[in-house]
């Protein structure tokens, strides 16, 4: 469905940020990209989303449709002057039936638990609530592939867990594929069908592993912890050097 083939990406200096990176995402699949902070994961998402077009290689989508890739940023990035409903409707431009679009937006807001705040402004919402609205906006766009850049990293654990479950419900309903960037292995195992392990300087794929645990999965599930421990043992240099060091003990 989405095929990434990047030979080289560098900024002003000649140092490559991404080199020989190849992978694909299948229909309805959730793929987690895991790698150290600063490896270039956000840069990669910017390339896939079309925000940065200066790289050597190709990024192709099976449907060839232009309206097929959405990106949920690390921050909610809501328009502060638009209400919750207006923010969600903002991306529904192409739709002819405005009434239907509004109803769809309300339905998605209901799904993420924001139905009673449709007239509130982002300033009036908590961090978790703005993320829920950003999630609703991303799915209102109805993307074939949704790119997510550590979307729940700044949230407290219960809010992040709740949003991950909402994300899975929306993903099932909309039949979207998800490319989920994180530096937290436990989160990757809990959410993904497949995990792609990345190295840094330059970023490239070192390993891909399927996660075949039944859903729903939660961060504290013993099976999730077991798989994480297995990966920590498999990739000690990659996973134990930064944020996850405590979990490698």
């Amino acid at each position, binding site marked *: 469905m989405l095929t990434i083939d990047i030979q080289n990406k560098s900024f002003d200096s000649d140092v490559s940020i991404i080199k020989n990176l190849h992978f694909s995402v299948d229909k309805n699949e959730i793929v987690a990209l895991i790698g150290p902070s600063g490896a270039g994961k956000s840069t990669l998402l910017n390339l896939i*989303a*079309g*925000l940065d077009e200066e790289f050597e290689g190709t990024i192709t989508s099976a449907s060839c449709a*232009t*309206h097929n*890739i*959405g*990106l949920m*940023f690390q*921050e909610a*990035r809501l*328009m*502060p*002057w*638009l209400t919750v409903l207006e923010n969600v409707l*903002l*991306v529904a*431009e192409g739709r002819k039936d405005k009434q239907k679009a509004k109803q769809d937006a309300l339905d998605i807001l209901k799904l993420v*638990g924001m139905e*009673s*705040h449709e*007239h*509130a*402004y982002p*300033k*009036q*919402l*908590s961090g*978790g*609530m703005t993320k829920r609205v950003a999630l609703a*906006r991303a799915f209102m*766009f109805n993307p074939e592939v949704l790119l997510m850049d550590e979307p729940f990293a700044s949230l*407290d654990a*219960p*809010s992040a867990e*709740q949003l991950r479950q909402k994300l899975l419900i929306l993903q099932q309903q909309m039949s979207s594929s998800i490319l989920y960037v994180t530096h937290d292995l436990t989160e990757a195992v809990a959410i993904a069908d497949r995990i792609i392990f990345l190295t840094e300087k330059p970023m490239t794929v070192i390993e891909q592993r399927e996660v075949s645990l039944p859903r729903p999965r939660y961060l504290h599930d013993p099976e999730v912890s077991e798989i994480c421990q297995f990966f920590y043992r498999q990739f000690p240099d990659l996973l134990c050097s930064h944020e996850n060091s405590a979990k490698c003990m």
Partner: protein
Amino acid sequence: MISSGVTAMLDKNIQPKQTKSRGSNTSTLIRIASLLLLLAIWQLSVWLFAVQMLPSPTAVFNALIDHIASNELPYHLGVTLQRVAFSFTIAMLLGSAIGLLMGYFKKVDNWFDSLLTLGLNIPALVTIILCFMWFGLNEFSAVLAVILNKAPNVAVTLREGAKAIDKSLMEVAKVYQLPWQRTLTKVYLPQLYPYFLAAARTGLALVWKIVLVVELVGCSDGVGFQLGNFFQFFDITSILAYTFAFAAIIYTIEGLVLRPWERKVTRWRKC
């Protein structure tokens, strides 16, 4: 659950607050009271010190009625208003276009920066006199002089606005493939409204003043022309009567156009 707790808090927060509307009523009353206080001090000064060069507010008000009744004030005020409206609109459009281009393109900024500094610092009177000398004592010169004086101020304000555009929000528009019209109206312009508002506010005040000088120097009608006549006859009462009318127009524009617009575009900040 956590979310319901937050929800309850939010519901509480977004309840319309009565205290706010009471607060805004109080501030309106204070504004009116400050003007009434000024009039009272003025009237009292005239009574207590019998200042010869300062007519009382009541005398000024009577003169105002006379000038209105003779149709002289509405005519000249109308002519001035036309000049103000026309030159203000052109100056806003031209200044905004230049300012936005300067803010957006570094090269345009480099090209126009020195010219803008020059435009900002040349005394208004110099531009006015030169326009009348080069293009004659006509309407075109009058309006051109005002535009040349005002447009640089608008350009500077809008340049800063364009530089302050939040690129991360523009990226949202790009990722979600918003058409340019929607990006302009829903993402780009809302970030510029405070700058437009500031430029309009200061612009209106400046344009009024410059138009009066233009009319004083080279026109045969308008409030500025009339003030010149009253000056020659040392008619302070009429000068103040015209100033009253002038102030009334300013308050009307402020109350009916600028404040409602400001309330509308900054509503989200105050919630």
